């Protein structure tokens, strides 16, 4: 239904935690103040990471008992910023602070057809959408891409629920998703929902735009936590104010700049709104754009960055450094 951005914080108790794959853990939480869970909803959790208070967003995979018990799936990426480790350490009985469901990625009813595309842990946002579409008798397909089957959570459940509507694309089995073919095969009047790594979303968007497909039919969810390259440490400098900061792999450039005393403007902190934009004066290395705010043309220009999610990667023969102007 509608976008819901009103944050209502509440407590929750972990009631179950088990591994689904070597990299993904399912955590079930009984919340104190349940609210309806719409397809595409997520919650934000307050965590203490390395001694500092921070927050992370996780899609709600499924919910029972009218939203009293919700399930999340936590992916430990090699470049995790530390949230996954904290979440994975939770055990039944532990308390945590979380929002009631928020939804920036609502499933709109009434389209002729739907294609849901999940890459890796992006499946967490799609489980509820697919269930809702099935319950409504909608015409839909669910495409699920991953590296290898043992790393892909919920495959058996999805197969049982969706049968032939589910198509798996597994790199190890030589059935990878071929994006141009995929986009060619999507009929007009279809709404497409994508959740997954930024390179999957970028690739789909590029093919979509190339074909002049209506941008309103392409819906993407991003928590800004995946890039084209592994996160590495880099240096950011603001010559105008003499500020210099090291950005650790598990820290965003925005966080490092704030910690170094720069006054920064921001809003979404997930690469969507563009408010945290900085202009690039000098660059040693390359920009790993992880936002969905800039067009491909703007990303290629390397002149601006959304510092809440985007990073710098080192050149082959040197250190990664970026010099910027803030707003």
């Amino acid at each position, binding site marked *: *239904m*509608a*976008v819901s951005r009103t944050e209502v914080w509440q407590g929750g108790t972990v009631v179950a935690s088990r591994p689904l794959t070597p990299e993904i853990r399912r955590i079930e939480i009984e919340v104190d103040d349940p609210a*309806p869970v719409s397809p595409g909803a997520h919650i934000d959790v307050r965590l203490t990471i390395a001694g500092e208070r921070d927050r992370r967003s996780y899609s709600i995979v499924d919910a029972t008992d*009218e939203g009293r018990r919700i399930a999340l799936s936590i992916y430990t990426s090699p470049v995790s910023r530390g949230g996954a480790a904290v979440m994975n350490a939770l055990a039944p009985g532990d308390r945590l602070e979380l929002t009631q469901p928020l939804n*920036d*990625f*609502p499933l*709109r*009813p*009434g*389209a002729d057809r739907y294609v849901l595309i999940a890459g890796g842990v992006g499946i967490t946002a799609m489980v509820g959408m697919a269930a*809702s579409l099935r*319950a*409504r008798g909608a015409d839909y397909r669910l495409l699920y891409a991953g590296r290898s089957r043992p790393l892909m959570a919920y495959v058996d459940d999805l197969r049982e629920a969706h049968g032939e509507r589910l198509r798996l694309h597994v790199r190890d089995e030589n059935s990878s998703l071929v994006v141009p073919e995929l986009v060619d095969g999507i009929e007009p009047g279809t709404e497409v929902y994508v959740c997954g790594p930024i390179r999957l979303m970028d690739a789909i968007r590029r093919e979509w735009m190339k074909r002049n497909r*209506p*941008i*309103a*039919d392409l*819906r*993407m*969810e*991003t928590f800004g936590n995946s890039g084209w390259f592994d996160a590495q440490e880099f240096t950011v400098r603001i010559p105008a104010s003499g500020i210099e900061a090291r950005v650790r792999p598990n820290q965003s450039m925005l966080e490092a700049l704030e910690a170094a005393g720069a006054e920064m403007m921001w809003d979404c902190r997930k690469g*969507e*709104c*563009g408010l945290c934009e900085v202009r690039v004066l000098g660059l040693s290395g390359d920009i790993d754009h992880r936002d*969905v*705010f*800039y*067009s491909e*043309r*703007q990303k290629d220009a390397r002149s601006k960055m959304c510092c809440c999610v985007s990073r710098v990667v080192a050149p082959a023969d040197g250190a990664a450094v970026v010099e910027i102007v803030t707003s």
Partner: protein
Amino acid sequence: MPETVTAKLLDHPRNAWYVAAWDHEVGRKKILARTVAGRPLALYRTEDGRAVALADACWHRLAPLSQGTLMGPEDIRCPYHGITYDSRGRCTSMPAQETINPSALVPSFPVVDRYRYVWVWVGDPALADPDLIPDMHQMTDAAWTGDGLTIHAPCNYQLILDNLMDLTHEEFVHSSSIGQKELSESEFVTSHTDTTVTVERWMHDIEAPPFWLKNMRDKFPGFSGRVDRWQIIHFEAPSTICIDVGVAKAGTGAPEGDRSQGVNGYVMNTITPETARSSHYFWSFQRNYRLDSQLITTQLRDGVHGVFGEDEAMLAAQQAAIDANPDYEFYSLNIDAGGMWVRRILERMLLAEGRDHAPAPRRGAQLVR
């Protein structure tokens, strides 16, 4: 359920079709701003004539889209910063950037054009089944003709439902047109299903009140004499009440089903809650005789408009008295049987939506949510 107190004012169900506007009110010349069931809407039509209902607040800074501009076949542009949306509420362009924020959209509500009205569903869109629209076929059926208007009533929708479910008030409120003492003297029969309530009343061998005498003479020039009069009130949840009314020459078999010696009208009422204290009251009077006479159509519309003006004044006064006496409760009478069944059905709809119908607080009285 706290059944000991009759809720003075009921919250309205959200999972329901409500009339947002007459079909002719929604077009492309002007975007219509109207609040339906507490939800401000921007209503317009696409170039191919499809009615659209979007939330009347831009995603960005909530500027009212109803003050915006229609663009191309189906888009609407915010009057403030020019953000555009398609008929589904999806953002199609943003100023000063080459991409579109993935969360940018305004809610779009299911809409159906039917029975000369634009119906909208502001609840869970997954439940918006057009088959749930109440039957008002007399609005478009070739065997009937008529016209109506909208009253913007300054009261909770529940008070209008009460008004229509018990027509004994005609004797007192409408004494110069349709009121007569037999209304309170004659028996009535109430029946109900899970979603409907019917109240039927027959008055045998009586004088026709002025409104009905005029109608009889339209069909039977020079008519005089006594009549059998009927009122069969059909409620269909949540807030449509179609009333089968008429008179026939006394003793010619109308109660047994032969209405050929009489005149028959349908008062089509559908009430759309606007806020907790205001309602859009859409009505029409449809008849099945002298179909060709626009004169009669206009006379009936204007006549009923005058009669309903008397209801409107009473409803406004009643709402004001309720607000002024927050510590007083409602009591019920036998004549409220129809209205009480309506309440029961609405309370169940509210509970099914996970909402308590919660009687208004006794003190401090800012009514039900």
